[in-house]
Structures are given as C-alpha cells and as structure tokens.
C-alpha cells in the first residue's frame, strides 16, 4: 500500500464531489486554453500581417535613419555588407529598399507619396507584392515603370499606361524629378498604405533620387518566426553598431506592441477571475474533506504515521485532483484548437470590413504553440499548490486527541 495509492483511493471515496471539483478544473483549463488560443492566434495573425505587409521581422538601416527618415541617412550596400546579408543564419530572405517621400502628380492632382525602390522579386518574396497586383503587370528588375497603390491611383485619377510625375528632393540636396508610366495597380488592405505607396525598381529609384548604389533599409524574413529576435541579434553582432542599426518590427511599431499588450492584459484579467473562482472551489472541497476526515487523521498519527507522511498523502490527493482536471481539460481543448488553427473562423459583415480596413485578414485563427498550454497548466497547478497549503497547515496543527474525539 503505497502512499500515492492511498491518496488516489481517498480521492474516490466521494466520487461525486471529486468529479465536480475535477470538472471545475477541467472547464477552467478548457476555457482558458480556448480563449488564450484565439487571443494569441489573433496576435500572431496581426503580427504576420504587419510583418508581411511591409516591415519584415526586422530591418537594417544606417544609424539614425528610423528617427530621421531622410535619404541622407541611407547607406551603400557594398559587397562586404551584402555577404553578411546573404549568409545571415536564420534568414529566409531579405529585400533591399530605397524609400523616400515625394510629391506624385498626374494632371491636376498632386499627392504626397512614399516612393519605394525595390528589387521586385526580393520584395515579392517578403511581402507577396505580386499577389496584391489588381491590374497591369508586375515590375521587372530594371523596370522604368511604376506600381501605384489603388487608392492613390483613384485620387490621382490614373490608370495603366498613364504617366506619373514624381517630384522631390534627392540625395544630398539634389532635386529629384521623374516621369514613370503606370505599369500596375496594387491593392493594400490598409487604407493608409493604399493611399500613398508607389513602387519603382531599385535602379529607377536610385536614378530618381541621385542615390546611385544607396539604400535606406533592408527588411528581413526568417525561417522560424519564433526565433526572429535571435536572428536580428546575430545581424546586430555582425554589423558595426556605429554605422548601422538593426530594429525589430516591435521597435519600429511600439504602438502595435502596446495594443497587443493591453488586449492581452484584459484577457489575462478575465482568466485571473476564472482561476480565482476555481481556486475557491477547490479550497471549499478541501475544507469539506478535511473536516470529514479529522478523526481518521488523528487515528493515523496515533498509530504511528508521521505528520509529514500524512501531509504528503493530502498533497498527493490535491495534486491528483488538479492533474485529473488539467489533463482532461488540455486533451479536450487540443483537437478544437488544432481545428481552428487549420480552419480559422472567417469574420463576416461589418467586423470583416473593419478588420480589412485596419489592414488585417478577416479571420480568427488559434495559436498552435506549446507555450500557453504549459503556462495555463502551470498557473492552475500553482493555484492547486496554494490550496494544498490548507491541508498541510491543518495537519501541522492537528491535535491527535481532539481529532480522535470528533
């Protein structure tokens, strides 16, 4: 008769009560996992949308560029640097850009735009730009034409084959002016991006801005998104910090990070309330169980069981009760979470429209990573461990004679 066996049998001496308590743990962990899965899945989708819309997981700039985004803060992608970029471990590709603000004009319409000089294929590798093409054809490497975002094209009232005039300031104060035939129209879900983007080939942009061989940023994609910080760190180590800055998407977009954190915190508060209710439920069960069995505990100590051994039995009972709820809760949540990870819930109606307007895919996927499964299980276990203190304290203070007399 091992002590753990005794704990297990004690657990089932009142089947209904044990089942009710285990079920409360089951539902707590099940709800917590499902809720957290959708919450984290939404964040993942949001981050994925942001990263693959434009920024990449991290970017390399000339030092100070992010704070002052001007062409004078550009750099030369020389062979030494290029070798570092090509051979960066963990990177699945990158796109080199020359970006600058300018005025775009067609007929009587003029608008401030962001001109992006890119290697068309590299850009497509990171942001799937080709898929965003709604009319016309995609750019080639030394293309002299332009891709214009759909809203911007509407404002400027231009279409395929029309001429786009770009005027601005070039590298080191040179004036920049160019005429580009519209080769294609691209559509971005985000109204902000869709209203101001113009894509040129890198060569055409460098000519426009008199910035031969210069680039303003290199945006990176990674093979394993969960390790992008390590990849960014590797790049940071391999480049001269006095000349270059490496910034992750989180550093470039702190407002998005704040938004995710605030939303996540509200979700965690909900979970906290749920866990508190479950914690009190288990506490109540333990209290009833202890009161019912005090005489038995007294007898056990009287005949020679050390209090420490008795405590272990009670800790074992509470632990088994918790594990029962946790394991069944996790097992029940797993298939559901996996199903919605593969088949995200599509958003419809106004919700879908507003999601698209914000630049995100209109769907609700779940996250499929072990982190939150472990985290939620550990939290419930910690609650159970706190509840375990009750029997431990009661046994510590137990008076054998009083207990036997009960």
């Amino acid at each position, binding site marked *: *008769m*091992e002590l753990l066996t*005794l704990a297990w*049998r*004690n657990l*089932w*001496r009142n089947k209904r009560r044990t089942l009710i308590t285990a079920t409360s743990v089951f539902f707590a962990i099940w709800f917590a996992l499902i809720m957290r899965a959708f919450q984290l899945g939404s964040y993942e989708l949001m981050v994925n949308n942001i990263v693959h819309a434009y920024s990449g997981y991290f970017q390399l700039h000339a030092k100070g560029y992010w704070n002052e985004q001007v062409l004078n803060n550009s750099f030369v992608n020389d062979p030494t640097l290029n070798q570092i970029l090509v051979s960066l471990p963990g990177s699945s590709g990158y796109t080199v850009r020359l970006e600058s603000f300018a005025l775009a004009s067609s007929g009587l319409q003029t608008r401030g735009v962001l001109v992006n000089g890119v290697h068309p294929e590299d850009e497509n590798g990171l942001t799937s730009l080709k898929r965003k093409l709604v009319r016309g054809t995609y750019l080639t490497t030394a293309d002299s034409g332009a891709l214009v975002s759909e809203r911007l094209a509407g404002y400027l009232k231009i279409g395929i084959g029309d001429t786009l005039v770009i005027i601005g300031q070039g590298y080191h104060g040179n004036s920049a002016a160019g005429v580009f035939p519209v080769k294609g129209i691209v559509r971005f879900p985000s109204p902000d991006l869709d209203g101001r983007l113009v894509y040129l080939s890198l060569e055409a942009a460098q000519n426009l801005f008199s910035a031969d061989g210069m680039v303003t940023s290199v945006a990176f994609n990674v093979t394993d998104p969960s390790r992008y910080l390590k990849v960014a760190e590797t790049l940071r180590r391999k480049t001269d910090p006095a000349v270059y800055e490496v910034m992750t998407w989180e550093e470039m977009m702190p407002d998005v990070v704040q938004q995710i954190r605030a939303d996540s915190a509200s979700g965690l508060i909900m979970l906290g309330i749920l866990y508190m209710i479950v914690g009190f439920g288990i506490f109540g069960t333990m209290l009833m169980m202890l009161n019912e069995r005090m*005489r*038995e505990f007294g*007898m*056990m*100590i*009287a*005949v*020679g*069981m*050390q*209090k420490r*051994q008795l405590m272990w039995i009670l800790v074992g009972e509470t632990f088994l009760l918790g594990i029962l709820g946790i394991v069944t809760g996790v097992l029940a949540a797993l298939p559901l979470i996996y199903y919605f990870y593969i088949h995200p819930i599509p958003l419809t109606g106004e919700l879908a429209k507003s999601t698209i307007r914000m630049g995100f895919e209109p769907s609700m996927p779940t996250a499929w990573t072990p982190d939150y499964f472990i985290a939620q299980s550990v939290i419930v276990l910690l609650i159970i461990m706190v509840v375990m203190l009750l029997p431990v304290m009661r046994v510590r203070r137990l008076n*054998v*004679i009083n207990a*036997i007399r009960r």
Partner: protein
Amino acid sequence: MSIIAIENLEKSYHDSEIEVRALNGINLNFEEGEFTAIVGPSGSGKTTLLNMIGGLDKPDRGTILIGGNDITRLSSRKLIDFRLRNIGFVFQSYNLIPVLTAMENVEFIMHLQKIPRADREKRAMELLESVGLGDRIHSRPSKLSGGQQQRVAVARALASRPAFILADEPTANLDSQSTRNLLGIMERLNHEEQVTFIFSTHDQRVVEKAHRIIVLEDGKVITDRENIPVVEP
C-alpha cells in the same frame, strides 16, 4: 521488570476558568502479559490515563517509563515513532481506513515500519486468520460488521509486534455476540502469545475477563486488584 512504570502522574485541563484534575498522582506498574481492565465512572480519568500511556498526550507532572524510556520527554516526532514500534491501539469506533481492505488496514502499520511487502502480506494474513477473518481479507470496512471491524483493528494493533496494546472501550459499540468473540480472541492472544492488553471499559462482561482491575475515581487509583476471570461455560 515492569514494561510500563508510571510515577506521580498528574494532568489538569482548563475548562474556561475551572481547572479539572483528570489525573491526580497516579502510580502504576504493568508487567508483560497482563490483561488489565481500567474501570471507573465517566470523568474518572480512564481515557486520559490511556492517552498518557499511549503517548497521545503529555502529563503536567510525573514520568511514564516504557521499556526504560521516559516517553514524556520525547519530541513529538520521536513519540510518533515510538508509538509505531511499541504500542498497539484499539479504538472504540474501530477507526479503520475506509478506502483500504481489511488486509491493507493491517498492512498499513507495517508499511509505516518499512517492512518488505512479502513479509507484511504474510503477517497480515496470519493475523487476520488468528482473529477469524481469513475469508474477509479483501473486504473494505464498510462491508464488515462492527465486530468484524473491531477484530481487524485488533489485528492491526498486533501488526507492529508492540510491547502492549491499549484499547479504549473496545466493546462499547458491539453487540453481545461480537463482544464475546472479541474477548475470546483477546484472551487467546494474551494466553497463547503473551500479548499485554490494557483496556478501559464500562462493560461488566469485559471486566469479568480481566486478570487485573484498576478502579479510578477523580483521577486517582481507588482500587488495584487481581481478578479471577470468569470462565465461559
């Protein structure tokens, strides 16, 4: 040599402002193989005395020497270990562990003593057979009658091969047939295996079987005499 030597034992309880002297200068010796009944009216100190001898409670004054050890000076932990190895208990309400079978209840004590499984199973079987429950070893307490449960409790008390067994009103909850059976078993164990029994009781049938009768009143020993047990026809 006495297996238990009690000297000047005193114990008081405080009930609100009133001091109740449960034991008032008890001096007693118990020899190996005794079959002793402690009797007296309610509140006379019987249970308190048994609790003291069993190391479940500590006296205000006096000593209790068991096998030469003064148990009043032992720490709580050592006292529990001492009880495990030297004292068997039989309680009025049986106090078996409800989730264990009769066999496992008897084994429980030996498990605490870290006796190997094969040895404890063999001894538990022998003990249950000796109390007439060889055919109920796999029954849980809820499936046994009160008398049967008390016989399991006796077997459990014997499991650790204690120096003596303390039984607090062991027949209080039993019918007359069960009482007769239990007394028969206790007498046989005492006679054949020299097991020392010290029990408190109100039950005249039990008193009649005792070899020694100690009468307590107001925490004092009023009478301590030998008794010629009544032999059943």
